């Protein structure tokens, strides 16, 4: 199907690529269908684009790129609701809040997007403890100095 997107104009997508957020995302509870789009020339980030609302799109990234030791335990309700059978089917993405200049951008580690790649069911999972920040930095003073 052909969809209108926020950043990439009209894009042709395959129906089997559609990701279902059964209860939407916090703040967007009616938005249940999304697709992940690649950004030309950018391998680090992708776009989580709403199928229903062309203007709604999040920039997402693999949180492990910025935080190698990022780990958390999925609780039973989310494993059940996404019907996760095998760990290898789990895809984890973090929503980015892009700022200008770019190095001030943050990623939300407290509420990652969890996708079961097998059945394309997804959910924004709010970690039940405060181990990670929802505005985690993507650059660190050491890197800025060019060390």
């Amino acid at each position, binding site marked *: 199907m052909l969809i209108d997107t926020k950043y990439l104009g009209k894009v042709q997508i395959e129906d089997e690529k559609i990701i279902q957020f059964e209860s939407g995302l916090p703040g967007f509870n009616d938005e249940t269908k999304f697709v992940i789009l690649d950004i030309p020339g950018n391998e680090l980030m992708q776009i989580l684009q709403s199928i229903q609302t062309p203007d709604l799109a999040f920039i997402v990234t693999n949180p492990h790129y910025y935080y190698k030791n990022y780990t958390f335990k999925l609780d039973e*309700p989310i494993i059940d609701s996404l019907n996760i059978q095998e760990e290898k089917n789990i895809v984890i993405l973090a929503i980015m809040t892009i700022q200008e200049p770019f190095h001030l951008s943050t990623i939300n580690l407290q509420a990652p997007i969890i996708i079961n790649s097998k059945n394309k069911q997804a959910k924004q999972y709010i970690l039940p403890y405060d181990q990670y920040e929802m505005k985690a930095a993507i650059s660190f003073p050491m890197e800025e100095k060019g060390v």
Partner: protein
Amino acid sequence: MLILTRKTKEAIRIGEDIEISILGIEGDQVKIGISAPKSVEIHRKEIYDAIQVQNNEAAKLPKDIFTLFEKESEG
């Protein structure tokens, strides 16, 4: 809003399968136990609200955001 007064170890039942118990009170903190079906999501309100705000901020990026990436890579 329905307002009920409960003592420690007393509980409230909501519908068929949700039970909220007052486990203890210490100063201005109340320890609450919640029994609910797995499908019912339970969050601390301020955290849920903050995630909503963060999602809204993340979704409000300008459409020309990619020129920003280009600018950075040139710089």
